[in-house]
């Protein structure tokens, strides 16, 4: 008898005997086959050693507990549905934040490009001399890198959070129906140590670069315009340029 013949026969017999959690039983025998085959036994040998599936199936007694816990399971599933509604809303918020962060990152990149090539689409970029513009462009590029890294990490965080929630969901149902539960998952993404180090380095460098260039740009602008409030001089934010 091959592995499939044995398992099919066993499943049929279990069904005939009204065994409720037949899937769990079958998976035990599947594992038995997997282990034995890894040890180099043939499917026929393993099936022969396991015994007659008809006889084995008759040794399983139908579960009385499962019928008893039926009511409990319904309550658990109802409770889970309510939790799901709140968790769903929460995940929508997380996704929204991810989208906002991504949009912010893209804006930074576009602004940096505009500053460095000296174009100002729809006059959105305030006028300034080229030197502070290139310094600000550098600062915005660093901010773009920083927010992009943030986006990537946050996406990993959402993914892990969803997996963790999924595991909780599955385990709660499994526990209510008397099946074995899997260990729960942490909510923080477990990235390889190397990736973690890289993310930290890139974030640190871009943060420092952003701050330095931003402050430098401000100082340069003040010097070039000859005024602390250089935005008055250059007519930003609707101020009339002081000529």
């Amino acid at each position, binding site marked *: 008898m091959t592995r499939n013949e044995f398992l099919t026969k066993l499943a049929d017999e279990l069904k005939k005997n009204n065994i409720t959690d037949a899937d769990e*039983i079958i*998976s*035990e*025998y599947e*594992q*038995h086959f997997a*282990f034995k085959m890894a040890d180099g036994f043939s499917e026929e040998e*393993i099936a022969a*050693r*396991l*015994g*007659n*599936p008809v006889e*084995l199936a008759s*040794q*399983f*007694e139908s*579960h*009385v*507990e499962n019928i008893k816990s039926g009511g409990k399971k319904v309550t658990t599933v109802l409770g889970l549905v309510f939790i799901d509604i709140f968790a769903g809303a929460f995940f929508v918020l997380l996704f929204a934040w991810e989208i906002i962060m991504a949009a912010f990152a893209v804006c930074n990149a576009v602004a940096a490009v505009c500053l460095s090539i000296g174009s100002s689409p729809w006059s959105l970029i305030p006028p300034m001399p080229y030197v502070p513009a290139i310094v600000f462009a550098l600062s915005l590029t660093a901010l773009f890198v920083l927010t992009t890294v943030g986006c990537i990490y946050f996406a990993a965080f959402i993914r892990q959070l969803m997996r963790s929630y999924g595991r909780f969901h599955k385990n709660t149902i499994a526990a209510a129906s008397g099946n*074995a*539960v*899997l*260990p729960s998952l942490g909510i923080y993404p477990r990235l390889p140590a190397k990736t973690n180090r890289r993310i930290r380095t890139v974030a640190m460098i871009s943060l420092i670069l952003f701050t330095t260039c931003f402050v430098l740009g401000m100082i340069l602008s003040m010097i070039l315009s000859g005024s602390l409030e250089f935005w008055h001089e250059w007519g930003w934010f609707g101020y009339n340029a002081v000529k």
Partner: protein
Amino acid sequence: MNIQYKKGVLELLVLSLLKKQDWYGYEISEYLSRHIDIADGTVYPLLRKLKSEGLVTTYMQEESGGPPRKYYSITNLGRETYEKERAEYLNFAQRVAEILEGDNNDQK
């Protein structure tokens, strides 16, 4: 040896094995078939019976590079039952041995 003899004590053997540490189904089956001549598949109905009686519990544990394994672990009730039945069985087996060995001597 008659299969009915063995089945009665298999439960006791499984509990004695689980008293030391948690095992997964395949390990238990391998252990029993190494020591006692039974069909490999017999252990799974037995484990399920022990579980439904509350003498053992199960939990899943993820192994690296494989599907999660179902581990069996003895409960407090399982421990108590084991100690009680162990004493009963040893006492019973001793009496049986006494009688049977005595019979053997008579024939000589």
